[in-house]
């Protein structure tokens, strides 16, 4: 657009400058004449008309288009600016709204987090208590078993020792009368 305007201006100058130079050459001579130089005035008028005609034909559409485009661009830019500003206002309002709610949301989040922590702590404590109780039960059961085993082993050992002693002293302690009694008891058991 600027290049076109420059071309039009250069064309106009090319059309106007030669007559103006010629007119300037004739001015000292005109100072010696009296009356209106109609011919030169007409010539100048024609030149000016040509000049304005060229301007009207060549420069004006471009200038008008340029101005229209410029106006449209400004209008679009303004509309865009308005839209962006509206969006910004909406965004700001939304964020303001969020900020206003943020305190309550934070409180809710903190409350939920505390509730979760309490629940999880209770679960962990319950599980730990159960595990401890199970361990304690197992330990008690193991201790009882070991105690019973030891008691039975001790009793067996005592019985074994008693049997050994009895078997050792029996031949010396048992008399013929004892043998007769054993035989009688055996016969009684057989015939019963």
């Amino acid at each position, binding site marked *: 657009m600027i290049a076109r305007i420059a071309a039009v201006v250069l064309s106009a100058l090319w059309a106007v400058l030669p007559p103006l130079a010629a007119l300037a050459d004739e001015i000292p001579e005109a100072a010696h004449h009296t009356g209106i130089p109609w011919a030169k005035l007409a010539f100048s008028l024609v030149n000016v008309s040509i000049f304005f005609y060229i301007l009207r034909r060549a420069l004006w559409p471009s200038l008008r288009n340029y101005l229209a485009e410029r106006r449209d661009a400004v209008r679009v830019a303004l509309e865009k600016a308005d839209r962006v500003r509206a969006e910004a206002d909406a965004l700001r309002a939304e964020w303001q709204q969020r900020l206003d709610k943020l305190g309550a949301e934070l409180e809710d989040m903190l409350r939920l987090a505390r509730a979760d922590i309490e629940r999880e702590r209770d679960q962990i404590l319950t599980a730990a208590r159960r595990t401890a109780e199970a361990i304690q039960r197992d330990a008690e059961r193991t201790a009882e078993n070991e105690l019973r085993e030891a008691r039975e082993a001790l009793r067996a050992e005592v*019985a074994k020792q008693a049997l050994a002693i009895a078997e050792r002293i*029996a031949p010396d302690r*048992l008399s013929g009368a004892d*043998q007769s009694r*054993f035989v009688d*008891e*055996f016969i009684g058991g057989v015939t019963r």
Partner: protein
Amino acid sequence: MIVGSVARRYAKAILAVADEQGSLEQTANELQLLRAVTDDAQISAALANPLLSATARRGLAGSIADRLALSPTTRNFVSLLADKRRLDQLGGIALEFGRILDGRMGRVRATVTSAIALTDAQRQAVIAAFERKLGRTVVADTAIDPALLGGVVVAVEGTIYDGSVRTQLRTLATRIAGGRSLS
């Protein structure tokens, strides 16, 4: 001792012959003698030797019969066993013969074991008790086993009647130990 079918067949055969001749008890006694002889490991090995010739087997059987002064019936039976290579079955035959004869006579064999020797009265009392219990005549062998400590053990028809002090003490000790093994 487990008696095989061969020994049972021979036992029934000699029993039939002895029954015909009315010498059941004598034959039974002679077979018990033969059984005692064949219980000897060396004699048993010699009788079972497959390399022994028929003449040698017959000679061995005759020698044993002479030594034991066997009746002609038993002597012939031993010779027959030698010919048939069945001398190794003598122990089983004698056992089975005794069983069959005992069954026919209504007798039962028993072994009475005690820690010290029983008096005749005690022995007779034990035998009488088992005769009453079993309803048959009891023929008892006696044995001494000091390890019993006291009392009597009677084995009859595969059943052990244990009245020994040793077993009573062990039963008592096992009860004290709560059923736990004492070994």
